[in-house]
Structure formats: C-alpha cells, structure tokens
C-alpha cells in the first residue's frame, strides 16, 4: 500500500522517499527562505517511522487476520471441498439439490428480510429522536443504544418470555384495556421482535451518526426553493441518510441470517434457520456438511455486503464540514397542532420502544431479585458474592469475569480501532477491486461464530506444526486478538463512509504542508470522522464484552472467563444467579459505553462522521 492520496498512484515508492533529494538541495544562502525542513537525524527517524506506520499497520492487520481468522476458518472450510483426501464439490451439489436445505435457506432469508424491515422501522424513529431532538439524558441514551448488543441470547429469551409470553407484561397490559391475549411466543413474530431488539439499536446508532452530520445548508437551500419541510427532508435528508440506513439494513440481514440461539429459544425447532443445522452437523462432527452449509451462508452474506459496498462507494458525497441543523426541544415552545402531532407520534413510539427494548431488560432485572415463590430476594446477588468469596480455583468467579471482560474490551479497543481504521484507509483508496477487498475484510461479520470457534481450536489452540515444532496459541492475548478481529469490521463500517467523504484537497493540503500520510490521518482525517470512530469504538467494546464462542475456545487457562461465560455457567434450573450476573453485565457494559462516548469527547461540536 502506498501512502499517498486516494488518487491513482502508480509508484509504490511514494511513501518511501523520505530521504528526498529536495531537502538536501536547499543551498545555504537561501536557507532563510527555503523549506527549512527539520533535517536532524532524529527528525528523519520519526518521519521515516511515521511514513511507514500505515504500511506497517496494514501488514500487521493482514497478518492478524490471517493468523486469527482466515487460517483457522480455512481449517474448517477445507472439509467442505476435500473429502477423504480428494477434492470434490459434491457436498455443495448435495445441499443445493436438497429440497430440505433449499427450503431452510429460503426460510432463513425470509425471516432475515422481515427482521431487517422491522429493525429499520423501529431503528429509524430512534435515530430521528436522538439526532434531531434535545432532551435531558439524550447523550447517555445514545451511548446506551447498543446495550442490547451485548446481552446473551438466553437472557434476552428470558426477558422476552416475561414480556411477550402468555403471562407476560404485554398481555397483562392488554388485559387492563380489555384486549388480548396475544400469542407471540413460539411464532415467527417473537423471533422478529427479538431480532429487532438486537438490531434496531444498531440501525439507530449508525443512522443517528449520519443524521447528526447532515448538511443543514442543503435543507435550507431546498426550503428556499419552495420545498415543504417534508419535501426537503425527502429530497435532501433521506439521500444523505440512505447509505447509513442501507448499511444498518445490510448488517442486520447478515446477523439475522446467521441467527441461531434466539431462533431456537423463542421460535422453536419448527422455525429452524440454516445456522441451526450448521451447529447440529458440527457437534455431530459431520464437518463436510457443516462447512459446506457455512460457506454457502457466507457467500450469500458477503455477496449482499459487496452489493452494499459498491452502492456506498458510488454514493460517496464529498463533504467538508458538518453543519447539522439545531436540535428541537422535546417539549415544544408552543403547542401548535403540528407540534402536538409530532409529540404524540413520539409518545406512541416510546411505548413501542419500551416494550421492545426496556421491558425485556426490566424483566431480567426483576428476575434477578425474585425468589421462586415470587417474593423479593437478594439471594441471587448473595450467590455472586458467595461464589466470589468461596469459589474454587476452577470455578468462575464474578469479579474475575468482570475484570477479564473489561481488560479484553480495553485490549480489543486498542487493537480493533487501529485495525478498522487501517482497513478503512486501504479500502477508500482508488483502485480496482477495492470494494472486493473491503467485502472480504468484512468476512468476520459473516462467518458463523461456531465455525470460527472450531477453527480457532484447530488452528491455534492445537497449534500448527512447522519444521518439527508445534506452535500453539491461546490465552488472554489470543482472546484479545480474536475479539479484535470480530470487532474491527464495525470500526471500518463506521469510519469508511466518513473517510470517503473527506475532501481530498484537505488531505493534500496537509501533505503539502509537510505532514506524512500517517500524520495526515491522525491530524486531519480522524478528527473529522471522530463520530464514526467513537461509534466504532463503542461497537468494538460491545462485541468484545458480548463475545462467547472464541472466548471459551481460547480461554485455555482457567482464569480467562468473561461475564458471558459466567452467565452461561450460572445458568441452572433457577434463572436467578444467571440473571443477577446478567444485571452485572448490563451495568458494567452501560458504564463502559458511557465512558467510551464521553472519552470520545463532544463529538457533536466538531467534525461529524459517516
């Protein structure tokens, strides 16, 4: 990778020529007027290091991806095409001519499409509210939008039964107004709502960032040309939001396409998705079929993502500054009919959001303080304390889990953010096939977690034999690396649109003023896409804290368990201990999100993203 501008660049030496003849050419008598570049050795060393930092970053990123992702996954995928030592495509032929699997694929895509529509429908109003209104706690609320992302599916399932079940909150509420009951559990609807619970916040978060960087001047222009507010929104705002909306939609589709525990917990086996069968074949050690299914799943997901990336690339809008319109107050100054209608709509949305997002979480909190006879108890928290105090060395203790989760999240942040930025930089350069590279770099989003888990076991934990030595990888650093690989695509996806939109002349100005490519990235580009970086960082934390599959595989020592691992361990016949741990997870994660966002600074004041 060359370090120059996103323009076509035929010379790979562009960044290398640090010891340029130019600076040496300055003659003494003209020194006062000439460039006067700091020429001392140390300065050169710094500049030389800087000039190569991006290249080094790209190499390290690629190496990490190969070691922690592509190689391990390939050890599983190879099973699909090499059977009994000879190459074959028969597994694919078998699957693609099997009516049963075709139906399952069709249903999987169908429920993913519906989930996507629902997630966008619920996420967009949230984005509108968060981007366009001012109210107390708005920023905290925005920080917390991706909280659902980290909740283990079993916790969500418990919350959903409590909310939407036969005796749940919803039916109780409906009964009060003389309606219902509605039967949602074990239907497609329950799956869709749960998918919206996970993904609508994702859509909201991504679109909020885009909405906050909409150029208000364009709206004003449209208004001045006679467009009604609605028309101006449709003509000016929607096109600016479209890439973000479609990105949220594409990610939602990919995630729900590979959904599995939530489907089985809320829908049941009659509504099984393809991932259910990947899991089934995997644990029964039918690797050929499992790998073939996973590859087909991956191709579909990445194909979709590639389509989106091509679109995003074509839609890149050059943007220099960000001039968002001022936020409105949630309580209007004057109650005009229009203002009242708007607030009524917001209130209506709030009720829906409360049911979809809040109620399952509240149910979980209630479960953590409810005894089996329904009375209030702190016994479940007492269990956590007791396990902490008296647990054996091989048992999972809450504080250790919290500490590990936070350490891994911090490590993930430190690795995934630079990785994601580097990939963004590499894929916003202008060259043929850059979007293909981008799509392939997004593969960690689309390969099923259980396949990655098995790959890590085979490729890293068992080790590879090289020249008579068996090299094995495991433990904390490997966990951080695996988390970072899972997390960096979110950084990339949040940073790329903003980075692509930065006016090239801004970067070139900095370069011509003496900044290396790396300095330009740090001084100019990243500050301008800070909202995207912060959003990506929050996602990285969320992914790390919520990650389960790779963690349990790589936690080869007994002291590397995380909060989700603890929840799984404490899950017994009673829900109490696990839900108590779930609440701990909730609080710790919420706090980290707020810290990440606050640490990211007043993103709104300067520089937008996306």
């Amino acid at each position, binding site marked *: 990778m060359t370090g120059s501008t996103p323009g076509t*660049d035929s010379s790979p030496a562009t960044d290398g020529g640090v010891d340029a003849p130019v*600076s040496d050419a300055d003659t003494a008598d003209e020194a006062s007027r000439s460039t006067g570049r700091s020429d001392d050795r140390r300065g050169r060393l710094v500049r030389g290091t800087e000039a190569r930092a991006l290249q080094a970053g790209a190499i390290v990123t690629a190496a990490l991806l190969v070691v922690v992702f592509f190689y391990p996954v390939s050890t599983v995928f190879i099973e699909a095409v090499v059977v009994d030592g000879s190459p074959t495509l028969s597994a694919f032929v078998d699957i693609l001519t099997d009516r049963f699997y075709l139906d399952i694929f069709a249903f999987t895509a169908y429920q993913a499409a519906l989930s996507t529509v629902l997630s966008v429908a619920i996420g967009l109003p949230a984005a509108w509210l968060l981007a366009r209104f001012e109210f107390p706690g708005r920023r905290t609320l925005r920080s917390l939008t991706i909280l659902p992302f980290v909740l283990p599916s079993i916790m969500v399932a418990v919350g959903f039964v409590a909310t939407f079940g036969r005796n749940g909150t919803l039916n109780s509420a409906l009964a009060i107004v003389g309606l219902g009951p509605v039967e949602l559990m074990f239907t497609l609807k329950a799956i869709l709502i749960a998918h919206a619970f996970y993904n609508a916040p994702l859509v909201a978060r991504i679109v909020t960032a885009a909405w906050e960087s909409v150029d208000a001047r364009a709206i004003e222009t449209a208004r001045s040309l006679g467009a009604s507010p609605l028309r101006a929104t449709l003509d000016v705002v929607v096109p600016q939001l479209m890439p973000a909306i479609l990105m949220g939609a594409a990610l939602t589709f990919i995630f729900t396409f590979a959904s599995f525990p939530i489907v089985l917990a809320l829908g049941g086996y009659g509504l099984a998705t393809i991932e259910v069968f990947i899991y089934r074949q995997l644990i029964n050690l039918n690797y050929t079929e499992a790998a073939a299914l996973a590859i087909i799943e991956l191709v579909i997901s990445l194909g979709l993502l590639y389509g989106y990336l091509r679109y995003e690339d074509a839609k890149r809008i050059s943007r220099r500054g960000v001039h968002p319109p001022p936020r409105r107050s949630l309580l209007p100054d004057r109650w005009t009919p229009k203002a009242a209608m708007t607030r009524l709509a917001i209130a209506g949305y709030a009720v829906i959001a409360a049911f979809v997002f809040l109620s399952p979480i509240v149910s979980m909190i209630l479960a953590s303080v409810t005894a089996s006879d329904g009375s209030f108890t702190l016994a479940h928290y007492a269990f956590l304390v007791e396990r902490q105090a008296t647990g054996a060395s091989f048992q999972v203790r809450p504080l250790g889990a919290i500490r590990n989760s936070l350490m891994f999240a911090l490590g993930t942040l430190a690795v995934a953010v630079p990785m994601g930025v580097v990939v963004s930089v590499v894929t916003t350069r202008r060259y043929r096939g850059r979007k293909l590279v981008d799509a392939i770099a997004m593969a960690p989003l689309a390969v099923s977690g259980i396949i990655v888990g098995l790959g890590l076991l085979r490729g890293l934990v068992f080790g590879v034999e090289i020249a008579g030595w068996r090299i094995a990888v495991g433990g904390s650093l490997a966990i951080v690396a695996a988390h970072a690989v899972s997390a960096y695509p979110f950084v990339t996806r949040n940073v790329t649109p903003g980075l692509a939109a930065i006016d090239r002349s801004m970067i070139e100005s900095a370069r*011509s003023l003496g900044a290396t490519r790396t300095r330009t990235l740090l001084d100019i580009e990243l500050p301008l896409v800070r909202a995207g970086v912060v959003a990506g960082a929050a996602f990285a934390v969320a992914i790390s804290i919520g990650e389960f599959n790779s963690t349990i595989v790589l936690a080869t020592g007994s002291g590397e368990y995380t909060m989700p691992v603890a929840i799984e361990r404490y899950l017994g016949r009673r829900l109490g201990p696990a839900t108590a741990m779930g609440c701990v997870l909730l609080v710790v994660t919420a706090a980290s999100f707020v810290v990440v966002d606050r640490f990211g600074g007043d993103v709104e004041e300067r520089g937008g993203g996306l």
Partner: protein
Amino acid sequence: MTTIELDGVSKRYGETTAIADATLSIADSEFFTLVGPSGCGKTTTLRLIAGFEEPTSGTIRFDGEDVAGVPPENRGVGVVFQNYALFPHMTVAENVGYGLQFTDPPGDLSPDERVQELLALVDLAGMDDRDPDSLSGGQQQRVALARALAPGPRVLLLDEPMSALDAQLRESLRLQLKRIQSELGITTVYVTHDQEEALSVSDRVAVLSGGAIEQIGTPQAIYRRPDTPFVARFVGDNNVFSGRVTVIEQDDETATIAIEGASIHAAIPADRSIDRGDTVTICVRPEYVSVTASEDDRGKKSGGELNRLTGSVVSSEFLGETTRVHVSWGETELLVRTTDPIDGQVTLAFDPDAVRIVSVGS
C-alpha cells in the same frame, strides 16, 4: 529560488490520458499559469508537480533535481485549492501554523510569530481564534494562502483559487496575490480556466487543451500571436475562419485567402511557410476591426490595403466601455467592438497585419 522543469511528462489513468508529453520550464520567481478548459490536464499537471501523483512517464525537476518518488510532504510545495480546504476542526491560527510543526519557520521567527506575520500579510491580523466556517469565502481563501506560505515553501501551487469567489472579490484578491507573490519572489504555478485571469496575473502562460500544451508565452504573445486555432478561440474574443490560399504576394509577406466568397489579405508570419492552395485558419481580434455604416463607406471600398467586408448587425451588447456587436457575414458571424450600439448594414475593415494565420494544412 526554485526552477521547475517538466520533461516529456505524461499521466495516464487506464485508457485515458490526462496529460501527454508535457515539456515546460518555469523560471525562478516566475508566476506561471496553466490555463485551459476543464479536462485539459492543467490540474493533473499541478498535482504532478505537487507530488500528489506520480507521472506515468517523464521527469519533473526542481532546481534540476529529479523529484520522482519524493512525497508531497518533502517537496516543499505550498498548495492552495479552489475550495480552500481549510481544516474545519482547527482555528485560523492553527490552520496557518499547521505546517510549522514539520518545518522550522523561515528566519529566526517562532512559529507563533510566523503565523502572525502571515496573517498580517494576507490582511487577516486578529482573526487567529476564529473558526474557518465563520469566515467569508475571500477570507477563507486568504487563510489558505497564508497556510500554504507559512512553512516558506519553494514553490506555490494554486489550483483555481478564485473560482468560487464573486467577480469583484476575485479582482482584489488577484491583485493581492500578485503583490504577495512578487514581494516574496516565490516560484508560482497557477491553474485556472479563466483566460482573463491568466492574462492579468501571469509572467507567462501555458494554454492546454485535451492533455496537450498548445502554446507557452507571455500574456501579450498569447493574446496577440496565438499559435493554434484553439488558443485563438480560447483566449479573449476572436474571429476565426478557415479558407483557401489563392494568392501569395511576390514578397512572400502577404497571402490572399478566399473566405465566404471574399478575399482577405493576411500577413504571413515569419515562422510559417504557406503555399497556394493550402487551407489556413486565420483570426482577427474584434478590437482591430473598424466598423462604419455601409452607406457612409461607399466609395472607399477599393481604397488602400485594408480588408473590407460588408455585413448586417445581428445584435449589440452594450458593456459600458465598449459595445460588442455581432455582425453576420455570409454564413458566419463576426464579433466587433464599437463605442455605441449600432444596427443595419455595416462595413468592417481591418489591416492585413491584424490578421493572424494560426494553422496551415494542405
């Protein structure tokens, strides 16, 4: 200070050629302008000089040294873009001072002093803490200029720096730019599509078209002695026609050219050889054509060696100082200047020496 040479420089993007085989040399302290319509390759040439892109072939030299592979940050260039490209997350002073992190300010100035010096130079003293967005377009452009100059670059590169500004502002900024340039004596490459701007500020001008250099010369030479039909048409108002050479005078100084059934006498430039039967393209600047009402002119028709054509006025545009008059003559239309709007039949007269032969073909 610094000379710039381009030697056979080409830049291709896949199938398309942005600039082909460009050779030119820019003298120390010269104000050199690249002018041409959009897509002519002028901006590419500037970007090649800046080091934002590397040429596909050819060599670029600063002070005789090949700069191939030298990244922009090490070339000592200051660049000003059309859209200012100010860093929106930095104040005016931070913008101007940005380059001083990497380069010691010229002289014994501290970075802060240098920033103040530059802000004063562009008449923006006291604007240090303003946000770029709060400035007017002209002010932003001056900040951009100050920022480019702050590290004391060897070369100043300006890419359409005025085109986003209104006419009046453009004129005053142009003057200011020219003053600063000559004060600093910095070698400057200026890119514009506006030929008038090019003529007014430059020491020399290169006219580009379709990726090729059409002509390099002083503004006066470009204006008065265009070498190609393109330059003739592009720079200033002009009347350009093609016709066949019917007569070559004995002294080889004048040719007679048949156009629209009339015969037009033209001086043969010293550097061109013309034969009878050649097809030539000629041009006459409107200001060299005198206009008289046809009735008044009767009787003078065959007098002297002036070319005389008769036509009818199509339209007159009163511009204050002059009036641009469009006159139809046969199938073509001529542009002339008068003091006041006129109409009706007119006779146009111009000296053979005012006729410039810009291309010859057989």
